[in-house]
């Protein structure tokens, strides 16, 4: 029997509903395009719903590096009582803290509110591409069957470059022939935390806490600790190498990890997120491996929540309050684009004439167990992400946004964070919408980068004017 496939047509198809995808879809729709957003899971927002803070929005110096959609998103979180805002870790970062439950509402409001047609629970199955690099569409699969979604422009916000890989584009994994990937994590939350006690402990035993990896925060360690305590937020980075964590690991009360990163997510619930669990050696595009990871990760959650309750002041009466909706993935495939952002570029804070988004997170490569490579962006500033990093080579109407951008492993380790992903998403979505305005659209590269940059600035993006 021949089976029937339905079809639909749209200006812009966005695949993936994480931070990059929701920014891309919303921006494309706001700029006049008809947009379909396909997401495999039951919710929009991706890692914004995990509880980890939004990194890469403010530079270490404190300048806003991503505006536009990100600002709208934070405003929406605030409307749902879920916005704490900019918090300094006095280590290397200014992060933005949101309530990962409010973020679900914010993502839905913004995406649907922009008029995007959303298909959740829908898996991108196959890419239909011509030999000359045109992605004609994507065949998706859900409970209703298979649908060919044809689009003038396709944006790959899958995180894993699934569409680019499906279209036959060249991709990279790891570095220098070593396919090792950063570990996967399961973020969890604890409620009823006494922030004042936690900070008093930080003041008494500062050797357990990493501060001042970026030297601009304070003249010395003591001043950084004082600043962290005075800030009054439970934003604490317990670090391997400190006696508390090292002893617990040595005694088997904790699994080996480089950090226990504590971040405020709700004042009303006195709740924090904890980013610490890790399983290395998982290729998250291998579904069997990824599926198994939740076993060890869920054990680590139980271990660490007990460790916090028994060993970290401020957590005596705290309770485990939630697990992230899914295992968090730092690194998989990256595309090879027209431009490849490099570690040298990001560390130097390099600016590009065709920059369409900014990154400012530190170089941040988590390793196995206690391994972790971190380095600052020059002067605590920002670097530009050029348009060419979103354009897979030898394709005409495909853009990527998010952690599958074209970058080497070092550059990826900073641009992978959600602030940068939202910046890239807004740029990709806006470029895709602007392609509609061309007389004879053949290649997304026809979109004038100067005009794209102007449009992005008009719509709140930060592209220049900061270190």
């Amino acid at each position, binding site marked *: 029997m021949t089976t029937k496939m339905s079809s639909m047509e749209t200006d812009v198809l966005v695949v993936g509903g994480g931070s990059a995808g929701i920014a891309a879809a919303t921006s494309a729709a706001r700029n006049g395009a008809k947009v379909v957003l396909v997401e495999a*899971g039951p919710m929009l927002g991706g890692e914004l719903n995990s509880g980890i803070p939004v990194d890469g929005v403010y530079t270490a110096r404190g300048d806003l590096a991503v505006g536009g959609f990100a600002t709208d998103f934070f405003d929406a979180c605030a409307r749902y009582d879920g916005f704490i805002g900019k918090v300094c870790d006095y280590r290397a970062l200014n992060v933005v803290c949101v309530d990962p439950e409010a973020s679900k509402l914010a993502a*839905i409001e913004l995406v*649907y509110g922009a008029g995007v047609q959303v298909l*959740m629970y829908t898996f991108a199955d196959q890419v239909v591409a011509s030999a000359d690099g045109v992605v004609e569409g994507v065949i998706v699969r859900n409970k209703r069957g298979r649908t060919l979604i044809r689009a003038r422009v396709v944006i790959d916000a899958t995180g894993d470059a699934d569409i680019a890989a499906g279209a036959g584009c060249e991709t990279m994994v790891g570095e220098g022939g070593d396919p090792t990937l950063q570990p996967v994590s399961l973020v969890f939350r604890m409620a009823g935390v006494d922030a004042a006690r936690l900070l008093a402990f930080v003041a008494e035993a500062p050797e357990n806490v990493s501060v001042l990896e970026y030297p601009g925060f304070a003249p010395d360690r003591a001043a950084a600790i004082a600043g962290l305590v005075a800030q009054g937020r439970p934003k604490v980075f317990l670090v391997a190498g400190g006696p508390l964590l090292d002893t617990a690991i040595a005694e088997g009360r904790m699994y080996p990890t480089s950090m226990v990163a504590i971040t405020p997510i709700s004042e009303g619930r006195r709740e924090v997120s904890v980013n610490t669990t890790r399983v290395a050696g998982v290729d998250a595009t291998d579904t069997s491996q990824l599926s198994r990871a939740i076993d060890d990760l869920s054990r680590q959650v139980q271990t660490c929540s007990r460790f916090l309750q028994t060993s970290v002041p401020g957590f005596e009466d705290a309770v*485990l309050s*939630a697990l992230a909706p899914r295992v968090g993935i730092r690194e998989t495939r990256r595309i090879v684009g027209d431009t490849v952002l490099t570690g040298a570029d990001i560390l130097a804070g390099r600016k590009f004439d065709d920059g369409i988004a900014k990154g400012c997170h530190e170089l941040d490569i988590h390793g196995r167990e206690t391994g972790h490579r971190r380095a600052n962006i020059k002067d605590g500033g920002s670097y530009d992400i050029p348009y060419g990093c979103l354009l897979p080579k030898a394709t005409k109407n495909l853009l990527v946004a998010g952690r599958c951008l074209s970058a080497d492993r070092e550059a990826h380790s900073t641009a992978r964070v959600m602030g940068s992903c939202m910046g890239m998403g807004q740029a990709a979505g806006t470029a895709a919408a602007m392609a509609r305005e061309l007389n004879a659209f053949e290649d997304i590269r026809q979109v004038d980068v100067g005009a794209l940059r102007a449009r992005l600035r008009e719509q709140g993006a930060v592209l220049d004017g900061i270190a």
Partner: protein
Amino acid sequence: MPRPYSTRHHDVVVIGGGAAGIAAASAAARNGADTLLIDAGPVMGGELLSGIPIDGCLNTRGEWIVGGFLRDLIDECDAMGGFVGAFFDWRTIWVVCCDPEMMKLAVVNQMRKAGVKWLLYSFVDEVVTDGNRVVGVVVLNKSGRTLITANTFIDCSGDGDVAVGAGAEFLHGDGAGAFQPVTMVFRMAGVDTGRLLKFAGEEPENLALGENPWIKESREECVRALVAQGYPKIFLRAEGPLLSKSIAAGELYPTALIGVTPVSTQRREVALNTTRVANVDATDTAALSATMPALIDQVWNCQAFMKKRVPGFEDAVFAGLAPRIGIRETRRIVGREMLRGDDVLAGVKRADGIAKGGHHVDIHGGGTDQVRQPIADGGSYDIPLGCLLPKDIENLAIAGRCFSADRRAHGSARVMGTCMAMGQAVGTAAALANDRNAPDGILADIPIAQLRTRLLEQGAILDGTH
């Protein structure tokens, strides 16, 4: 060049990791079968993670009617501090309240202990049949396509996806486009139970109470007992002045109820079951996806209403959304037997029963509409294996809300306690069907007495309980 399919084989493959699926997989694995559990999402547990209580575990009399896997899961939750308790709503049912976040961990722990293998993020794309057998399912995920063969398959997809794919006959909603509403459950923390119950005691006209003829107590006695129970377990009803006025004034969307249940004593947190968009066919993915903005508008509307109008919620805060939209009703597979609403309401017992139900017939409609009919005598009814075996497919079982029932019977048996009982029954049956010299995975010829004996040995409740 297209990627080749990979292949794998297991004795038993369970599709769908909700309440029915985890029970089925655990039972199959514990009884010796090499068992794979497949789910389309990133975690296991389905609606157990939503925050709504587990209905159907006890009858109205307060007698446990589901044991076995359900009790193991509750014990696992309890050991982590995630079991709040079993409570009577003094309306018509007992509910079991757990912390849905601890439940995520408890489910993983239980699957690990049972020796279940699991494959997440995986969509069942095709069903491969040979005559009246299911040979395999083709699963789609980021690794490509895998042909997974097995001796026995168990469809716990909620929607009967595998059975329908294998050509099984099915019924759909009321047959004329009506489906029970979909719901987004949400949670609020920092609730003052004392104040809430004081309000319940002072203004009981707002509560749904004493709806079951087995409850002999007067409304006043019900209120006193509910307050004495000491937990935030109340049903605000549409007919009460608080809701009816607020709905009429446009301050609250039309809804039959606001069901409040405790999920965490330490966090003083409750789940609220109230939002609704009716008559959506949840197997229509575009239609299901399109309900999201209306549901979250209702969520935000309701949490503001609770804070403003319901004592005990003055200082409460929004604490979370269920991981996904909750679905009450889609397809029902036509099995070798069909459970009837009359049998459910009469509490009919069967010598060949392999699971028990006890939830009232509970059919939500649009707006304030809801059918609620109690089981006779506050008791329970039996579900025979034939309701879990699709007609004419010999090695496929179904468990959960897609089992074979008319719409009224489904309105009772769709709840998680009953789903777990069904899951344990078919998982055990599947293991027995594979525990033979030449395992053919055929389920219909399993001696029911042997299955019942095994289920009873493993804690299932099959006899008595009114």
